[in-house]
């Protein structure tokens, strides 16, 4: 993390903010909610409390504007610079400006910028943080579409803001995370200033238990997705990754965010196109492409880009056949064949899985190709199928790869 020169900070814990105007791209209540949730991210890890003003001069004045807007840093039209904010101080100090030429949204889709994420970043500046060079940190200068449900402030940002303001007075009972800004909650429109701070949060929320990683040799172990990656095999479940590598004997235990910080936990499917050094992850109706640790720009994209009908909201599993160069997508009891060269679905699909893969008469959680065979994972079992001869070879426990 970094701070501004001489580390300017607010010399008080009660900081005021005021929303001067709104973007026509979103409902006013969604703008207010995005700003409030963004401030809550910072108040939940510091002693700071934010009070909204509706008139007069607030410490943090928030506005939308395009092009030249009265300071020395004109905006540049769509793309490029999305917003900027000033470090704590009088007058323009603390103010945050958002480029109205962008398309603002409360979602984390591909055709707009999520106001909650950008506001959380800009308000970090309003509180005195500079940019971070930690990929995946909120204060990283480049916009990265992230899943904002259950969004948690990355550690680097917590370290930075607490270097300026210290930790909260009493440790928050709940992990520092924002609520999904998309969750519509009635925002009071009372004239009285509203306060946003964790201590005001409803206490009926039970502390969320972070699920623990299942044992490697748990006979009931199931997986969400499995893929090869540069000769290794990655097994995904929730936010956890089991990494099996020919380069070291033990199974390595990681988390998704340790490899790809912006990606949401819990993939539905994953596959590798080895000759492109590309792995594709699927979650709900979107997909991401990565090369090693690097997320390719322009993602996530809707799965309809691949040719799925709108009736398909998510996929169960995917595998790329390195021999035929076809990628198979599994949804329910059907599957599609996708041509990686033409980047389009093949004609005559979807087909029934059971018709072409003997012994696979049920839905599929994940599929892996190894040594020319396909391994279909369904619950705590996997089915090894010889693709060429279309024969079911054997059934094993899903975690047989972990030397149990």
């Amino acid at each position: 993390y970094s701070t501004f020169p001489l580390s300017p900070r607010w010399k008080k814990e009660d900081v005021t903010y005021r929303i001067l105007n709104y973007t026509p791209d979103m409902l006013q209540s969604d703008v207010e909610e995005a700003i409030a949730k963004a401030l809550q991210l910072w108040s939940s890890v510091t002693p700071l409390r934010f009070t909204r003003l509706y008139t007069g001069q607030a410490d943090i004045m928030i506005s939308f504007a395009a092009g030249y807007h009265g300071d020395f840093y004109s905006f540049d039209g769509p793309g490029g610079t999305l917003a900027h904010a000033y470090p704590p101080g009088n007058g323009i100090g603390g103010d945050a400006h958002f480029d109205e030429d962008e398309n603002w949204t409360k979602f984390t889709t591909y055709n707009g910028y999520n106001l909650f994420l950008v506001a959380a970043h800009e308000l970090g500046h309003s509180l005195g943080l500079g940019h971070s060079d930690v990929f995946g940190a909120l204060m990283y200068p480049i916009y990265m579409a992230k899943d904002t449900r259950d969004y948690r402030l990355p550690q680097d940002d917590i370290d930075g803001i607490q270097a300026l303001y210290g930790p909260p007075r009493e440790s928050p009972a709940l992990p520092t995370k924002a609520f999904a800004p998309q969750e519509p909650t009635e925002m009071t429109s009372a004239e009285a200033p509203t306060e946003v701070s964790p201590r005001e949060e409803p206490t009926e929320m039970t502390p969320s238990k972070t699920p623990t990683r299942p044992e490697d040799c748990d006979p009931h172990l199931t997986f969400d997705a499995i893929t090869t990656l540069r000769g290794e095999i990655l097994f995904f479940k929730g936010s956890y990754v089991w990494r099996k590598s020919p380069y070291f004997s033990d199974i390595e235990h990681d988390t998704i965010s340790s490899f790809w910080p912006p990606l949401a936990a819990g993939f539905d499917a994953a596959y590798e196109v080895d000759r492109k050094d590309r792995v594709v992850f699927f979650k709900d109706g979107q997909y991401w492409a990565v090369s090693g640790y690097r997320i390719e720009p322009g993602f996530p994209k809707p799965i309809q880009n691949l040719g799925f009908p709108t009736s398909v909201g998510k996929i169960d599993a995917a595998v790329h056949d390195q021999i035929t160069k076809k990628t198979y997508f599994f949804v329910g009891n059907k599957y599609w064949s996708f041509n990686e060269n033409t980047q389009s679905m093949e004609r005559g699909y979807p087909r029934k899985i059971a018709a072409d893969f003997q012994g696979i008469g049920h839905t599929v959680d994940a599929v892996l190709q190894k040594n020319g065979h396909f391994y279909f994972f369904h619950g705590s079992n996997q089915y090894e199928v010889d693709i060429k001869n279309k024969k079911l070879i054997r059934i094993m426990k899903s975690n047989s790869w972990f030397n149990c």
Partner: protein
Amino acid sequence: FPVVSEKEKEDMQLAKKYLQSFYDFKEEKNSLFKTKNLANKIREMQSFFGLEVTGELNPETLDIMKQPRCGIPDVRS
């Protein structure tokens, strides 16, 4: 000398504007320092983003420069 293509000119323009905005790059009048100064700023930006530090305007560096981002500089004078 190799002809500088239109695209290369545009890329160079984009890069200078980016480095002026976020890395406190100031165009030198004196041509002797011009190239050196620009290369140093490119190195500074490449180092911030964890790219290979070459001082050259390669595709990876340009790719980062084209990403939507915050308007606050990454380094300050």
